[in-house]
């Protein structure tokens, strides 16, 4: 037990609770405040990203139909409210960029990671509170720059979130700001990653061995390692692209490049595919960076509301480690049709097929957790169950593109768009909704309204499927992604009705989010008081008041058992907090 314990005596490194407004709510060192800051940051950017998606879908449903007020809001991109192709390209580029880097990652890692991890392991704060504050305040200018890029000449970046060179090298200025924003954000994420890894390795409470850690903490631990190893590669590639754009280097610019009939001034010696290799070496671990925390949250919530231990705890942890390892050797599956050597394609196909296995293991273990449970359908549980059922679709649709010959047809079609949204919305975002509704009482001390929570869930779940399931059919018809209009093509010209259906579903989905926003803010004042442990859960964050006091715990808890001891036969209560001493043992006896 002594091997895992260090920071359990509240003597060193303890900061007094701040009293001034600035130190308490703005430049706070408290991981809980920083977590909430990340949450508001992410939720605001989620709204921005969602509005961009609405414009994209508007154009797909009613090509070139004017939206009068947009003519005033974006006169250059939508003169008279009618969308231009280059503005359309900016919209989907920025939708993806904002959702991935400014919404999903901050809410899963920044918000839940920061708020939950230190309390779950029984620590008073993160290992480096100042670094933690810097992480958040570095992410803020990143968001400012990315929003600013909409207002520069030529508009925001329009080369896709993947920014394939050479297109991204010859785009207008918005692309430079895109690179700068993501470089800033990269620094922020690296600081976070270092902080999480250090905290989880060093700050666990006495008795909190690795295999007693809650799976959310496990997931964020592995996510942080992925961030640390993958992100520098993206940053390096982005610096190279930035140099190609502003300093005249030619990392990604091959000889003989002719743009609009004119030889491109700095070209020669570069490799266009190099960008793709570097980007996807980051990009595929990135996919798991966005899904692992949601998997962790789901694994946390299913046992609580099934009142049952998680099925196969170790299998869950090992499969996450497996995903992390394999995640680094599958990047080439994004490049099967890129001109990369086809033999290499075969290699990547095999590793990609293998990475489906740990995800399958997790799914079966979630089912095993439900089997024989006592299932309570609370809003967090409904979102977590949605995660499981939608992730199944996203995982299975991945097998189509893993098969190289099938990928020939569906690559760069809406089949891919459908697949990725089942993983990122059906998976990550439902995971985020689950986490939000689950930890809300801990964050704000009050319960959210359950009825409205269920209505929000039901509408979101149904409309989500109405928007994204048809995308598979569009892809099977051969509709390419990232096209301003499909009506140019004979074989796609009958697809307007289904696109209209999807867009109308999106309007309903967007409207349903107003319920969540209202429930979120009104419950802060009006919600029922939560008490420390409203869900009767075992993990340490529920064994301290809601919201937790400064430095989280009165005395650092001792941990006696794993996190998912529900419905143990020897107990009358169906839960067993991790820090509750076993009968007969005293606190002192463990020290």
């Amino acid at each position, binding site marked *: 037990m002594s091997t895992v314990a260090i920071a359990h005596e509240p003597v060193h490194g303890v900061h007094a609770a701040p009293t001034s407004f600035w130190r308490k709510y703005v430049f706070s060192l408290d991981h809980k405040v920083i977590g909430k800051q990340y949450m508001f940051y992410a939720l605001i950017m989620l709204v921005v990203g969602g509005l961009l998606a609405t414009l994209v879908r508007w154009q797909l449903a009613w090509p070139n139909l004017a939206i009068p007020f947009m003519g005033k809001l974006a006169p250059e991109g939508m003169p008279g409210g009618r969308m231009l192709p280059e503005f359309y390209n900016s919209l989907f580029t920025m939708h993806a960029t904002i959702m991935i880097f400014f919404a999903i990652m901050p809410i899963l890692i920044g918000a839940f990671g920061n708020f939950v991890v230190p309390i779950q392991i029984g620590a008073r704060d993160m290992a480096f509170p100042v670094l933690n504050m810097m992480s958040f305040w570095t992410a803020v200018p990143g968001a400012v720059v990315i929003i600013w890029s909409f207002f520069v000449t030529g508009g925001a970046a329009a080369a896709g979130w993947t920014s394939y060179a050479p297109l991204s090298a010859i785009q207008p200025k918005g692309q430079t700001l895109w690179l700068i924003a993501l470089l800033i954000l990269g620094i922020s994420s690296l600081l976070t990653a270092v902080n999480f890894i250090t905290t989880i390795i060093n700050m666990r409470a006495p008795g909190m061995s690795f295999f007693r850690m809650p799976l959310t903490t496990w997931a964020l631990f592995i996510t942080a390692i992925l961030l640390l190893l993958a992100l520098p590669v993206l940053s390096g590639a982005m610096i190279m692209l930035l140099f190609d754009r502003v300093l005249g280097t030619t990392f990604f610019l091959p000889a003989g490049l002719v*743009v609009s009939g004119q030889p491109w001034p700095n070209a020669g010696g570069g490799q266009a595919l190099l960008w793709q290799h570097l980007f996807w070496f980051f990009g595929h671990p990135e996919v798991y960076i966005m899904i692992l925390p949601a998997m962790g949250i789901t694994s946390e919530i299913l046992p609580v509301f099934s009142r049952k231990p998680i099925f196969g705890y170790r299998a869950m942890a090992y499969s996450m480690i497996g995903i992390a390892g394999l995640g680094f050797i599958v990047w080439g599956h994004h490049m099967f049709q890129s001109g990369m050597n086809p033999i290499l394609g075969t290699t990547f196909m095999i590793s990609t097929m293998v990475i489906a296995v740990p995800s399958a293991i997790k799914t079966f273990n979630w089912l095993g957790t439900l089997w024989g449970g006592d299932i309570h359908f609370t809003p967090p549980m409904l979102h977590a169950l949605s995660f*499981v059922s939608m992730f199944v679709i996203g995982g299975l649709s991945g097998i189509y593109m893993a098969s190289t010959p099938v990928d020939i047809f569906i690559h760069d079609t809406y089949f891919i768009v459908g697949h990725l949204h089942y993983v990122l919305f059906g998976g990550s975002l439902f995971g985020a909704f689950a986490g939000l509704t689950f930890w809300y009482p801990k964050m704000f001390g009050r319960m959210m309204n359950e009825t409205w929570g269920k209505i929000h869930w039901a509408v979101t779940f149904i409309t989500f499927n109405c928007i994204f399931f048809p995308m598979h059919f569009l892809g099977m018809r051969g509709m390419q992604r990232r096209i301003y209009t499909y009506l140019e093509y004979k074989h796609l010209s009958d697809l307007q009705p289904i696109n209209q259906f999807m867009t109308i579903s999106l309007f309903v989905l967007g409207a349903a989010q107003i319920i969540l926003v209202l429930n979120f803010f009104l419950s802060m004042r009006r919600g029922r008081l939560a008490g420390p442990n409203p869900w009767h859960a075992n993990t340490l964050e529920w064994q301290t008041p809601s919201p937790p006091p400064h430095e989280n715990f009165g005395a650092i808890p001792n941990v006696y058992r794993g996190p998912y001891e529900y419905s143990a036969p020897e107990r009358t209560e169906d839960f067993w907090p991790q820090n509750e001493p076993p009968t007969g043992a005293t606190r002192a006896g463990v020290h």
Partner: protein
Amino acid sequence: MPNACAARIPLRSALAAFAILLTTASAAVASDLPRWLQLPEGVSSYSATIDGMFRLILWITGVVFVIVELLLLFFLFRYRHREGRKARYTHGNNRIEVIWTIVPAVICVVLALLSRRTWADIKQNMPAGAIPIDVTGEQFSWTIQYAGADGKMGTADDVVSLNQLHFPVGKPVVATLRSKDVIHSFFLPEFRVKQDAVPGMSTRIWFDATRTGHWEIVCAELCGLGHYRMKGFVTVETPEEFNTWLAAQAAQAEPAAPAPQEAQPAPAGMPPAADKPVAETGAAPRGQEAKTSS
């Protein structure tokens, strides 16, 4: 009472689920997939292989999908909260972990091995005696170069056309893809052909056609503001018709190579390619919509 239920319901449901599965499976084997689960008509010699692979994966993932989601729904119904219910206290089962690790692993590896062969046949092994062509992408058009009468590329009698791909039915074509500016992707949906055209690289791809007809070339990789309209036309004709067309092109195009894009000036005798599909090659027979539109 609860005990009796507990024993009966799973067995009955399991039998029912199995019966449903068996019925759908046999019905599916007997009949073809519904229209909305099929890919568009395939017109190259390997399109059927790709579609077969797609269909196999559709079946495997479809069955897994149905089983997992039904099981999930069943558990949610069967184990919903009731007063006095106590959850089963279990931490898992190693044997079942091993089973559900090995079964998906075997399925996935078999799928990979099956795919490997098809992939090699399409992208690695180029057929001998194929018609060589060069395809060059640029913002936002396709330039297609034919060997001309001598059958060799890069000689004086080469024929160049803009956005017009012609080739004879039943004979393989090997296309060398290049790009002048950014990455494009040469996508012929009905032929199940997709290959990026990358500046600084030349990539070879082969395809053929099993019947004559008219289709479209699509750009599948975002290449700038005109990406959505970077369209070309495919005409598959009999060898005689193809030779006649090639000769006519050679005769017409004597002095002029196609000028740079943007305005997309079409070679003489051809309507601008950016127009509606109706404005296709004037000489080509029309009336293919019924056959090709999917």
